[in-house]
């Protein structure tokens, strides 16, 4: 009995020691759910190329990601809404923002017996989400969609019940196209929604929209594609109705390259340009300029170089748009400033 116990303990210790010896570096990060699919793929691919490195990412939300990197419980953070100046000041050291991919938020809808693709404009979306347009056959919607027969169904607005970066991108756009939205609701991750029901996560919103006749909501592009929910083109600043695709999202970022601020904290919603999709956004990875653990820093810098290079090829397959070359060049210059020794 005693020898059996000894042998079992010995095996367990050997197993643990074996796995511990294998991982030369285990890096923890946390943050946004918006880029979770592409980050998971990246960390997995990177681990295949470097088996002694494991990067662990928890998609707990942008707010939690910012909190955790500020309190240094994780090595890197991820967020859809850039950190505010107050948040940056509250951190114990300087934090760099690194845009990683581009994503799009699309308006999804579910109207019984309507198969045609509906066109939306920014002010119309704002009015719907403010609760001012309440029926699908409202003249404001009919004006943009001359050919479609719209029923007299009530519009059920579906928004996020949890604080979210996707929400941040959506309301950031609405505030730019609707002064009433800007004054009444404002921009943030948990706005005081004037109308509608809340679903938890992109999955919750997709679920509610597909289940509720007459519903309209907003989700990341990949959710609309994978769940096969109808989503419509949105009118951009140039007046064109553009549907969210890899090309139209990249076009939205291309304009921003010229005016990119040095800390990369920029909003590209309602971007100028004929083929730009107006509800696009960067998503950022957060790293300290001078972290305590230099070994982990070296690994992360190497990972970032790969992600900004070969990693971008994996983005389109998951519904994200790769970064424009101009942005990548600027980021590599900032990456060089992160201390690795």
């Amino acid at each position, binding site marked *: 009995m005693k020898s059996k116990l000894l042998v079992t303990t010995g095996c367990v210790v050997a197993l643990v020691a074996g796995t511990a010896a294998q991982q030369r570096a285990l890096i923890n990060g946390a943050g946004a759910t918006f880029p979770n699919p592409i980050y998971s793929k990246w960390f997995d691919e990177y681990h295949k190329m470097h088996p002694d490195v494991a990067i662990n990412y928890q998609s*707990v*939300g*942008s*707010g*939690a990601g*910012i*909190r955790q990197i500020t309190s240094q419980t994780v090595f890197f953070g991820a967020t859809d809404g850039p950190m505010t100046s107050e*948040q940056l000041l509250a951190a114990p050291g300087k934090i760099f923002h690194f845009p990683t991919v581009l994503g799009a938020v699309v308006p999804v809808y579910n109207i019984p017996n309507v198969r045609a693709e509906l066109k939306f404009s920014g002010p119309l979306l704002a009015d719907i989400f403010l609760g001012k347009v309440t029926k699908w056959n409202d003249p404001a919607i009919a004006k943009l969609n001359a050919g479609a027969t719209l029923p007299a169904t*009530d519009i*059920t607005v579906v928004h996020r*019940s*949890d*604080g*979210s970066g996707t929400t941040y991108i959506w309301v950031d756009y609405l505030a730019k196209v609707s002064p009433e939205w800007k004054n009444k*609701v*404002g*921009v*943030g*991750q*948990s*706005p*005081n*929604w004037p109308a*509608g*029901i*809340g*679903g*938890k996560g992109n999955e*919750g919103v997709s*679920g*509610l929209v597909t*289940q*509720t006749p007459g519903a309209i909501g907003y989700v990341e592009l990949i959710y609309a594609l994978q769940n096969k929910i109808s989503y419509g083109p949105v009118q951009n600043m140039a007046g064109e109705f553009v549907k969210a695709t890899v090309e139209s999202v990249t076009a939205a970022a291309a304009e921003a390259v010229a005016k990119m601020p040095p800390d990369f904290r920029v909003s590209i919603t309602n971007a100028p340009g004929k083929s730009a999709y107006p509800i696009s956004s960067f998503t950022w990875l957060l790293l300290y300029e001078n972290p305590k653990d230099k070994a982990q820093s070296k690994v992360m810098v190497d990972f970032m170089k790969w992600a900004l290079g070969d990693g971008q090829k994996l983005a389109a397959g998951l519904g994200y748009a790769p970064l424009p070359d101009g942005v990548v060049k600027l980021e590599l210059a900032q990456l060089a400033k992160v201390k690795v020794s």
Partner: protein
Amino acid sequence: MPQTRTSGDLGFRIGTGLFGFVVIAIVGMIAFELTRQSLPTIQKFGLNFWRTQTWDPIAGQFGALPFIWGTLYSSILALAIAAPIALGIAVFIAELCPARIQRPLVFLTELLAAIPSIVYGLWGVFVLVPAVRALETSMPEVLRRLPIFSGPARGVGMLSAALILAIMVVPFTSSVAREVLKSVPNTQREGAYALGATRLEAIRAALFYARTGILGAVMLGFGRALGETMAVTMVIGNDPNVTASLFAPQYTMAAVLANEFSEAADPLHLSALVEIGLVLFTITLIVNLLSRLLIWSMARSARGPAVATATQAAAA
């Protein structure tokens, strides 16, 4: 009666006493930490936190009235639906059903309690909500004009939440009520039969005797309904609203905590959420305490009269 205490016995007493103390200490620490973390909003808003309806994290305005309303409304409504059903089950199992099917029936009711909350939520989204939407749309116009049935028929809302809570509360309430009914001494029922009561009247006599315990069981169910999170947040619509309408989407304290806590970065927002947690903690603690006291008093009084007569006989 003198007890010989060895050192082993003393060690055992101290050890188990320590475990019991640890549980009390944990509850105390939870209460302390919740209060400490919610001090910023307590100092800023004071009592207005409970009276205002606006919950606006962007503007920094926090009023918790919609959540308190939603929690109490959904729990009380759930109880109103569940209590008769649970009592019916308890009476049937304890008094009426043949011994053969008693154990399978008990097993099946308890099985409902074992289903995780989120599974209820998923079932609610895919089965209950469409059914409730169909019910709401088929309601006649004359009823739809009443404030309690007003508003567009969406499916998600207070009615779905109350129904799903009722289903979750039934197993707890029925099993405690069943135990309470079993603890009613047979002399009560026999006495009733001796006085010429029918089966139903004898059951009523037993129920009357067990009334405090049954009230305790109902309150235990209430305590469970107050804290339910995942099932409720998936079917209630998550819209902070103070309205009597059953069709309107509303919000509960547990749901807002589950939804907003992980993303809340602003310290005031976090503190407001923790204060909501503190209120939920206090209400649940009080409700559970009262229900336990009621059940204990019932169990004590069951033995009470026998002890009284015994001491009387001993004194004579």
